């Protein structure tokens, strides 16, 4: 049907956000009928580049050309007019759960092509939706509600929606991260079908093996810049990883000499329905153990499972040889565990409460008389001390946490557990969204905890962080621990290789 292959070019794309140059003069090129892998470490700018293509930003510089002609893409609508469709990783944000599959697939047509017409032709909606699904060899009943679909099926529905309108280039942003092996196979069949129809697929993924399976070309990005663009067959896995990394670490990590003691914390056979797969690990007293892995590898789920915050988690956790009962954070805290969660605004702090209330939340009993009555003076004293020692920037201990900056909120979330004086500290991406100065403070805090003989588990997808602060690390991929590494004897290439599911050849 479509004789000439379409060609998409992005030339010298630059975009800046307050405080960051997200992309600088990036060139990108993709062709119809081929799948193009786009890869880069976290923050390399691949999602930003694709958002520019999808018309999510209008303040970029550079130009986009389709089939040689310049395409003015500044809004999502314009992008769609040029046949550029994007399926984001969070499929739920794009679907309307209480409508049927057909309504979701035909959504754009219903919204944009109903000019002047008032009555819905339901038979036609279902017929058209069914035709699209059949063309893609997908068998989902069009009258089913989207809320009843599995994640993979939702993804299919979104892809079908893209195909229902004009689609020449389809961007898939980490489509396989939440999928099982079989579902991934199904998705790949679909991608191959699209390719044969002349659609250009741009495939963002952290999983190296699957990129080699499905893609013809690869573009590697780093720090908002293009590194290389080549045919994927000519770049071995090892080289991809090297290109993703590049720059070496800067000396922002505290100097520390560690002398780990006995094994203090141990977990055996932790399983959490599909997200964590038979994980065992141990931490010695005074040791900082890293949990490396890419976003979506299951680090957060593992941290929550260890802390008893997941109802479906199973396995055994021992603290100083004593078995802990999993299943409730309440018990975990009383046993001496502390978790600084990743989503701090949602899970870590009480934004409408004062800094003092936040800091004392985990050990409020210490600030009461007769076990019940709050002692404001004790609270005030302890929190003033903590504010000073952590360098939290707040007008007073009575200020609401809502008014603090991200880094200071994170310090509050950590300070809560410092007051609690736990034995095991689990940090989940503690420096996410925190500025450089506060990062340094947080590293020092973590190092300080280890120096006091605490066990520290440090989950992060920033490789430099894991290398800079830990003694030892576990690398996670797809819910499992792929490799245990000693920090002093490894490097970023090795960690990244294991966390992308690669193997040493």
């Amino acid at each position, binding site marked *: 049907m479509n004789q000439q292959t379409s060609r998409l070019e992005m030339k010298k794309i630059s975009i800046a956000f307050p405080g960051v140059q997200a992309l600088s003069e990036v060139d990108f090129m993709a062709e119809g009928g081929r799948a193009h892998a786009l890869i880069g470490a976290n923050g390399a700018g691949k999602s930003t580049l694709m958002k520019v293509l999808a018309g999510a930003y209008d303040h970029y510089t550079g130009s986009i050309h389709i089939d040689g002609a310049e395409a003015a893409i500044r809004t999502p609508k314009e992008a769609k007019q040029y046949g550029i469709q994007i399926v984001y990783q969070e499929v739920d944000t794009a679907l309307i759960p209480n409508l049927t599959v057909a309504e979701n697939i035909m959504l754009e047509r219903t919204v944009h092509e109903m000019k002047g017409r008032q009555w819905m032709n339901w038979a036609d909606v279902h017929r058209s939706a069914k035709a699209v699904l059949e063309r893609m060899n997908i068998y989902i009943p069009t009258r089913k509600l989207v809320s009843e679909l599995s994640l993979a099926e939702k993804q299919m529905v979104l892809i079908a929606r893209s195909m229902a309108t004009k689609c020449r280039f389809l961007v898939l942003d980490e489509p396989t991260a939440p999928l099982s092996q079989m579902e991934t196979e199904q998705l790949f069949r679909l991608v191959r079908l699209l390719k044969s129809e002349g659609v250009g697929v741009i495939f963002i993924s952290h999983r190296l093996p699957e990129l080699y399976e499905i893609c013809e070309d690869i573009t590697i990005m780093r720090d908002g810049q293009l590194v290389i663009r080549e045919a994927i067959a000519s770049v071995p896995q090892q080289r991809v990883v090297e290109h993703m990394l590049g720059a070496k670490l800067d000396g922002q990590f505290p100097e520390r000499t560690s002398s780990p003691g006995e094994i203090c914390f141990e977990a055996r056979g932790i399983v959490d329905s599909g997200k964590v797969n038979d994980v065992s690990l141990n931490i010695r007293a005074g040791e900082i153990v890293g949990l490396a892995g890419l976003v979506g590898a299951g680090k957060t789920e593992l941290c929550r499972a260890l*802390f008893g*915050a997941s109802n479906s988690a199973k396995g055994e956790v021992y603290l100083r040889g004593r078995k802990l009962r999993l299943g*409730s*954070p*309440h018990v*975990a*805290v*009383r046993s001496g565990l502390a*978790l600084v*969660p990743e989503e701090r605004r*949602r*899970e*870590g*702090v*009480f*934004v*409408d*409460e004062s800094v003092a*209330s936040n800091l004392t*939340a*985990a050990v*409020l*009993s210490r*600030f*009461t008389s007769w*076990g*019940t*009555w*709050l002692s404001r003076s004790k609270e005030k004293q302890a929190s003033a001390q903590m504010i000073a020692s952590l360098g939290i920037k707040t007008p007073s201990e009575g200020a609401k946490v*809502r008014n603090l900056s991200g880094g200071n909120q994170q310090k509050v979330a950590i300070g*809560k557990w410092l007051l609690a004086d736990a034995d095991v500290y689990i940090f989940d991406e503690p420096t996410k969204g925190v500025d450089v100065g506060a990062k340094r403070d947080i590293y020092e805090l973590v190092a300080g905890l280890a120096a006091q003989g605490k066990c520290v588990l440090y989950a992060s997808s920033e490789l430099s962080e894991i290398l800079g602060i830990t003694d030892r690390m576990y690398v996670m991929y797809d819910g499992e621990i792929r490799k245990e590494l000693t920090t002093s004897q490894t490097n970023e290439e090795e960690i990244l290789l294991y966390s992308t599911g690669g193997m040493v050849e």
Partner: protein
Amino acid sequence: MKTASTARGRGAGNIVEFLYRYGTLITIFILVAVFGTMTDSFLSGSNIINILRSISIVTIIATGLTVSLSVGGFDLSVGSAASLANAIVISMFVWHGQNMFVGIAVALAFCIVIGLINAFLVTSFNIQDMLMTLATMFVFQGVALTYTKGATISENMIMPNGDFATGLIPDAFSKLGQVPWIIILMLLVVIAVHVFLNYTKHGRYMYMIGGNPEAAKLSGIAVKKYRLIAYLLSALFAGIGGVILGARVMNAEVNAGAPYLMDAVAAAFIGFSVFGAGKPNAFGTFVGAVLIGILSNGLVMLSVPYYAMDIVKGSVLALALAITYYKRKHA
């Protein structure tokens, strides 16, 4: 131009801030001034006591509701709990000839059961509290109706077998529904809950659960336990309200507690804005009830027909909510 608009923005923010903190109190003072000048007897001591007496039952029920709101819940079944407590306490005297202690104890015991059922349902299933308690509201209302067989319970009522009921309501019990005890009880409840929510660690935990349940859980707070306690207290105070209602009217009418639900909700939500608390609080709830009481009383004195009363009440609630939520959004 730019500076002018930001300055104006800040000025507007200050006015909102001021209204947010003191709007409810100012409204009360304005109302008192208006009613005081327009009528002769509004500011008389007996009328003030009259107002306090009229709001006491609403306040007690609303205070219980406030506790359920503090954990982020919403107990819509308080009116039904009050009805049931009212029916049980009066029937204990009239039908079973029990003494005052037994009557009150049995009524409150049933309310604790209501609290347990509510707590079990809202913590076990992931259903919004308001929907779940909407369902239990009907259930408990039906239980109260079934228990009374849809009849009003009063001294000397005719029993189904044709006899007259012989039991008497104790005199001491009737005192609970009269001045000064009814007002004293109300103040005790408000003070007790205020102290509980603000000066004990349990209250602090409840507010934290209401503010961010996930963070509370991950801080090791026993979320389910405190939600259970909140619903128990909510039902218990509703029960106390129902018992006092019985003492005041000396009978148990069909669904006597139901009309108190909406006033209690209104009082509790107006209370959010008192002194800019921004969250459920016992003192604010009391002020909310006072505001509603003053409005009703003053409007009656101005001969506004009773059927137009709800228009004013609803408007005041809308205003209080508008200020609270506007502030939240623009904080």
